[in-house]
């Protein structure tokens, strides 16, 4: 595991490799606009003094494969020699132009701001009508509600980065949002601990009553690992990319006498134990 933080995956890792932030390494960053920009080191990486690419090189050398790079520009030169859409990319050109949008090659020496302007690589686009794929998940009398999980603006995914910031003021815990009618039927009032149970598992969260929800649908976020949102969600995913179906899980919600489920208790003990194994930077 390599990161600048001891993230959730680190709890399951045998070996932690140091990571470097964007201020601590030279290299390039390619964004979703295909734009390659330079990253420039302004301070040394604090732990081993190695940038990410140097850690990869050291790991490779230790495993017996020589990677004699001394600067990331040499790695870019190798990428350019092997990748038809990158043949024109060099650090010199990046310094000259500021940034480059690939493809950058003989046909487009300064890069390509707009791709597929006239045609795709295959020619005209091809449209095929595919069959509707319904979810296999079903609500029943046992699991009458649909749980949808998602994100809020102030936290990012499981919060490895954002939970370390003052953003936690806006979102200090994941809660279960539920329509007042669904709550009333279950004897749940605002702030109660409730157990959310699916065919897969259960977890305990505080309920927040809100008319933001449709009756029949409940919602939570997954910004705090101890909430265990994915203990409840199903294993369904799409055929092409295995993107999990986190928006459709049939659940039941009931008042809980406890503030934590059995899974949450186990997770808390596990997290505490792991914290003792990774002292220092938390």
């Amino acid at each position: 595991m390599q990161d600048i933080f001891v993230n959730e995956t680190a709890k399951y890792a045998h070996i932690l490799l140091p990571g470097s932030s964007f201020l601590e390494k030279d290299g390039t960053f390619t964004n979703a606009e295909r734009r390659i920009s330079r990253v420039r080191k302004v301070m040394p990486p604090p732990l081993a003094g190695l940038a990410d690419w140097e850690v990869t090189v050291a790991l490779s050398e230790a495993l017996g494969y020589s990677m004699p790079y001394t600067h990331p520009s040499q790695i870019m030169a190798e990428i350019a020699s092997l990748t038809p859409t990158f043949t024109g990319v060099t650090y010199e050109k990046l310094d000259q132009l500021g940034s480059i949008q690939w493809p950058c090659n003989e046909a487009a020496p300064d890069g390509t701001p707009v791709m597929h302007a006239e045609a795709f690589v295959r020619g005209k686009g091809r449209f095929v009508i595919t069959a509707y794929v319904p979810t296999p998940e079903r609500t029943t009398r046992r699991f009458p509600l649909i749980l949808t999980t998602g994100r809020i603006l102030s936290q990012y995914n499981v919060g490895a980065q954002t939970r370390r910031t003052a953003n936690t003021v806006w979102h200090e815990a994941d809660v279960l949002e539920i329509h007042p009618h669904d709550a009333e039927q279950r004897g749940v009032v605002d702030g109660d601990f409730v157990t959310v149970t699916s065919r897969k598992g259960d977890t305990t969260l505080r309920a927040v009553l809100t008319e933001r929800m449709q009756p029949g649908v409940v919602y939570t976020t997954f910004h705090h690992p101890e909430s265990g949102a994915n203990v409840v969600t199903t294993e369904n995913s799409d055929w092409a990319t295995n993107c999990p179906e986190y928006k459709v899980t049939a659940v039941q919600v009931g008042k809980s006498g406890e503030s934590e489920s059995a899974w949450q208790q186990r997770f808390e003990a596990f997290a505490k134990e792991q914290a003792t194994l990774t002292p220092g930077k938390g």
Partner: protein
Amino acid sequence: MDAAKLVKMANEIAGFFASEPDPVAAVDGVAGHLQRFWEPRMRRQIFATLDAGAPEMTPMVVEALNKHRTRLEPGA
């Protein structure tokens, strides 16, 4: 990996390629997806499941596996 899950995934892939108007391209499409995105252990296991007889496997999956066996089966 659970063999039933592999069969389910393969059937879902075939379900998509069933939209392909050309039936030969559909079968080749299923095999192409397995070759590009399934790691060797998964492909080895789906052939073992096929050989053991898998009644849940759809005909298009069976056809794709049989037709492209030499290409898809690791170490075959």
